[in-house]
């Protein structure tokens, strides 16, 4: 299992063809992510960060280059249920209760893992995200922030060692967003899964990540990689520190280079 959770991309490119016109979504991406790390992909819209996430997760196939998840292809890893996907909208099934939604990853694709959902474990996770009292609630009874907390808990509760998060907080208001980013931080520090986190929020990227990958658009490519060398567990006080502010302005600097004004 050790070597499986290691993500490696070599010279990955992706083009989209639409009515004879070719758009280059990703251009020769080189990237490697160590097991148990929290890595953020940050960049403006259209820089291909979501596409990159979907290539890693085996949902989209690259045109050239190689992607390895451990020793296998993303499609093979997907078959083995190595990925916990957290989409932009929480994607809770409205006809299932919160707990039943948490159990969904265990119910499908039973060929890969025979593992049963551990009810106690899932409830413990829900309690960690502050939803211990909503186990039997339906999605329509929850606010957007609560739904996304379930989405995150569902990913951590599944057996997947790699979590792929596609701007999970982008639909939330600023205050909820800040609160949830700390919740995510707490769970991640306990579970230590590998996370690839797509965002366009600089604060979030610095707060959560071990490494921030800055991407630029047209064509989507990696512009800079910044290792965030801040102590863990990270706290709210840390956000006020000079070091934190320094990382933020560093990322902002790289993002602004693209502006060409």
């Amino acid at each position: 299992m050790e070597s499986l959770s290691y993500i490696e991309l070599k010279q990955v490119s992706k083009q989209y063809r639409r009515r004879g016109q070719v758009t280059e979504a990703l251009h020769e991406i080189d990237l490697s992510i160590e097991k148990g790390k929290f890595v953020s992909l940050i960049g403006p819209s259209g820089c291909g960060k979501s596409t990159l996430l979907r290539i890693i997760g085996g949902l989209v196939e690259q045109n050239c280059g190689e992607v390895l998840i451990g020793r296998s292809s993303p499609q093979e890893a997907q078959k083995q249920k190595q990925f916990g996907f957290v989409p932009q909208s929480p994607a809770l099934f409205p006809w299932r209760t919160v707990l039943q939604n948490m159990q969904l990853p265990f119910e499908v694709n039973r060929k890969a893992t025979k593992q049963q959902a551990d009810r106690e474990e899932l409830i413990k996770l829900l309690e960690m995200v502050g939803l211990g009292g909503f186990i039997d609630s339906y999605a329509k009874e929850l606010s957007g922030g609560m739904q996304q907390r379930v989405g995150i808990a569902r990913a951590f509760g599944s057996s997947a060692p790699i979590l792929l998060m596609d701007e999970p907080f982008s639909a939330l208001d600023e205050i909820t967003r800040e609160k949830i980013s700390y919740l995510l931080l707490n769970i991640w520090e306990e579970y230590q899964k590998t996370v690839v986190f797509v965002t366009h929020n600089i604060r979030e990227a610095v707060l959560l990540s071990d490494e921030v990958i800055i991407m630029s658009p047209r064509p989507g490519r990696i512009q800079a990689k910044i290792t965030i060398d801040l102590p863990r567990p990270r706290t709210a006080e840390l956000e006020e520190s000079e070091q934190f502010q320094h990382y933020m302005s560093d990322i902002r600097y790289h993002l602004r280079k693209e502006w060409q004004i």
Partner: protein
Amino acid sequence: MVNKVGNQTERLQPAKARFSKRLKRFYVKSAFWPPLAAFAGLFIVWELATIIFQINPITLPPASAITLEFFQSFSFYISHAWVTFYEAVLGFMLGLSVAFIMGIMMAHSTVLERTFLPLAVLANVTPIMAVAPLFILWFGFGTLPKVLVAAIITFFPMLINSIMGFRSIDDNHYEYMRSLHASKAEIFLKLRLPNSLPYLFSAAKTCVSLSVMGAVVGEWSGSSRGLGNVIMMSSNYSQTTRMFAAIFMLAIMGIGLTNLIRYIERKVLHWHMSVNN
């Protein structure tokens, strides 16, 4: 001392106004009293109109006479209603099942959809009245042709809505299932099927009363039993009172069946947005 939680303005109102407000709220929210009031009103206006304008009972019998006729020959109406009822319900279930199975196939295959949907459209645009006598010719005077007419009337709306329900899944849900490498069957059972339920119920609510119409049309074309037959016969003998009693029986059946579906819908779709508000 009516309620302690009332706000300032409510407390300033005289007791009488407060009472009428609560009465209104109770009345509006009740499922029983408003329709009853409407029917009572219709009954009274009808009765008075026949008396005041001295309408010939063969043209329009008084409401009281119809009620009396209904209760005097209660078992007669019930036995005929039962025939129409099971023809309609069997037809409804047949139409629903075929539509459901074809819906599954068409939702998964555009080729099948493009090929067979025109046939379904053809069946839908052909007036059912025109086809019913043909069914009598083919299948005789028994139950089968009536069931088939009811089934055909039910089929199309159910088919269209089930295809729509199976197809119109949330992209995020679909992608999430794909990220787990869920099989087509799993995606159908755990995503498409539950997703289609609101669509299926909304079609079923209209179709169930259409199926009653289908059974009656079938009976008109040739039958010895059923409320459609009662209407036909009483029309021939100018028994207007009997005709109206049969018509009301049909209306009650329609209301009953629609409400039954509505009740099941509320039980099954409690998670859905449209229920509860």
